[in-house]
């Protein structure tokens, strides 16, 4: 039933994706993509945080609840964290949190965790394009939408 709905909506479906990125690496990498006039799909809305270590897993749940069809989390490569170890916390938290999200029924294809450095504009472009395609294929994520209003 759910699969059927998703299929019919895919054709004109423009997904909404939230990206939680760190200020020092991925945000700067995304800026570089702009400065280099690269092009990528326009479905991502970036929320900047100082570090991926600042990301509360509840931000991700909230984003899904508010209508995100996909979520992207990206920070500095391991070892390159501006705050020396913040991204290790993010990585550990992600590993623990991932299985919980899977358990609650979120398709892991809707959620990407990545490292994009300030010089990896191409990686950022590919990442955004890939997650957009993937989420488009999956269709809208409706299960969590308006959860608190129900």
């Amino acid at each position, binding site marked *: 039933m759910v699969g059927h709905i998703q299929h019919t909506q895919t054709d004109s479906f423009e997904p909404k994706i939230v990206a939680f990125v760190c200020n020092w690496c991925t945000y700067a990498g995304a800026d570089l993509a*702009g400065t280099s006039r690269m*092009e990528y799909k326009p479905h991502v809305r970036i929320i900047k945080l100082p570090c991926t270590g600042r990301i509360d897993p509840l931000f991700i749940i*909230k984003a899904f609840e508010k209508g995100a069809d996909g979520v992207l989390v990206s920070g500095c490569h391991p070892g390159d964290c501006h705050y020396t170890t*913040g991204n290790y916390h993010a990585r550990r938290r992600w590993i623990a949190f991932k299985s919980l999200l899977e358990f609650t029924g979120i398709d892991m294809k809707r959620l990407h965790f990545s490292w994009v450095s300030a010089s990896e504009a191409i990686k950022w472009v590919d990442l955004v394009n890939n997650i957009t395609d993937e989420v488009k294929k999956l269709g809208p994520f409706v299960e969590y939408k308006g959860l608190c209003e129900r």
Partner: protein
Amino acid sequence: MPRIGVFVCQCGTNIASTVDTKKVAEEMAKIPGVVYTGDYKFMCSAPGQDNLKEIVKEHKLDGVIVSACSPHMHEKTFRKACEAAGLNPYKCEITNIREQCSWVHHDPTKTAGTAKSIDLTRMTIERLKKNKSLSKIKIPIKKKALVIGGGIAGIQAALDIAEGGRQVILVEREPSIGGNMAKLSETFPTMDCSQCIMTPKMVEASLNENIKILTWSEVEKVDGYIGNFTVQIRKKARYVNEDLCNGCGLCIEKCPFKATSEFEMGMSQRKVIYTPFPQAVPNIPVIDAANCPKIQKDKCGACAIVCGPKCIDFKQQDTVITEDVGAIIVATGYQLMPNERFGEYGYGKIKDVISGLQFERLASASGPTGGEIRRPSDGKTPKNVVFIQCVGSRDEKKGVSYCSKICCMYTAKHTMLYKHKVHDGQSYVFYMDIRAGGKRYEEFVRRAIEHDGAMYLRGRVSRVYEKDGKVIVQGADTLSGNQVEIEADMVVLATAIVSKEGADTMAQKLGIGYDKYKFYNEYHPKLKPVETVTAGIYLAGTCVGPMDIPDSVSMGSAAASKVLALFSNDQMARETITANVNRVTCNACWDCLVACPYTAIEKEEVKNRQGAVIRMLARVNEGVCQGCGVCVAVCRSKSIDLRGYTDEQVYAAINAF
């Protein structure tokens, strides 16, 4: 209700060609709390900023959104403009609709770009509604510096700071300052005598009233943060009263016992009460307690008998002194990789296989041979000397992956020194590549080869062994394609430069980063080469990686200039993006304390009127906190928040998505 103004920038056509800025402005006007919107050609221009200031005043705005380029570009500009208009700078937020929107979505119909700009600006408006007025944190600065390491980099840094009129404490682990440079004979490429240029600097440092030199001392503990460090320094027992000693040297003369000299790299003996070398600063001897019969077995005591000012004190103990400083320069230097790791070169087994630093001592006029090149085994003058390059360097399997940078140059220098002292001698150099990048460096190597007849052989040495009083070196000459065997009298190994023993524990005391070879990490390898991630701690010299004397001196001066700039103000203002604790809900689980990368979380005791501790609380030291927010995400009771990135602000942005 808030009074927010939204300014959408066209950036010429940079934004306007793919984003309908007018429409963005119109849409934003529909949001509750937005009382003013408009779009402009260039917001960052002087007229653009003036316009912003006027509108802030005219409409009595309490919040400003500028939808323009990346905040990395002009956040400071617009926050300053708002401040000039009487608004708290943290009530101004930037929406990035250029780098992350107009420049990456090339749709000429402007549909995608406009839709995204509207979303992004709306999210920023909702976030702004939750912004609080913040003020910069003011930190008092203690205008006194600590320099750790008394080599050339540390001495230079100390001298520069002292000349800038500030006080410096120079801590050195050994009995004298001088470091490795004091051991060198001559220096490339100018061939001036190392001690001739070094010792005047050492004396200058000792005479400067602003410099307090603590030798035979080690930094034990570092607490605090930029402008306000508290350092504990262990002064090891010298057994000589420094205040009384006049440096006459009679004790050294009369001491009947000897031990191996560390300064001479084990090639000669020194007395048990000693100064490492004649020009030592301070010129105060130290007793080698492990080898002193008086201290060990209460026998002898000759030094105390002859000492005029009666300054020998066999009962002296280590003392720990505490100093408050505002900045720290780390200049702990390097050491050579232990040659014992290279059995195929016979080091440690064959007496006439020595290290580059040992050769420096042989060639030095103040060295164990008085500057004559005589080999260690029988004191004969070697007629054939083989120099082997890259011993441990550029050798990931047995040594280190990096190039030690100075060996090509000092080996060329060695061949020249050797030729100048032994005219009929022949030197051979086995090398991988000659790396002579630097002012007048390549010419220097050419001079060694062309003028002083050093025979350079490109290839590696496979084996070094002893036969009939000769040291046989087997190796390859890859340019001629032949195996070569040289009957040498002495072999000199250019061993890899490695980080100083204990470099990692020192880094942990200071809270600075280091790489896998335990060299210290710069804040940024290109743009912040003397800063560390810990504010107020700077780097100089070979503790960062292999480098030559000019580079070490430059770094020492650079670090000193950073310290002087810091000390030019009584207070420093810093970003207020720091964590703060909700004192009502904190339950002292210390998850934040464990997670914090900066040890910025402290335990606070809450006491009752009788002075008994009734509760514990986490407290953020704002001087140390760098605002990463790791503590916020780990807090179970949601009792820590990050100013500027509060949960409320982030959720507001997500809700508006």
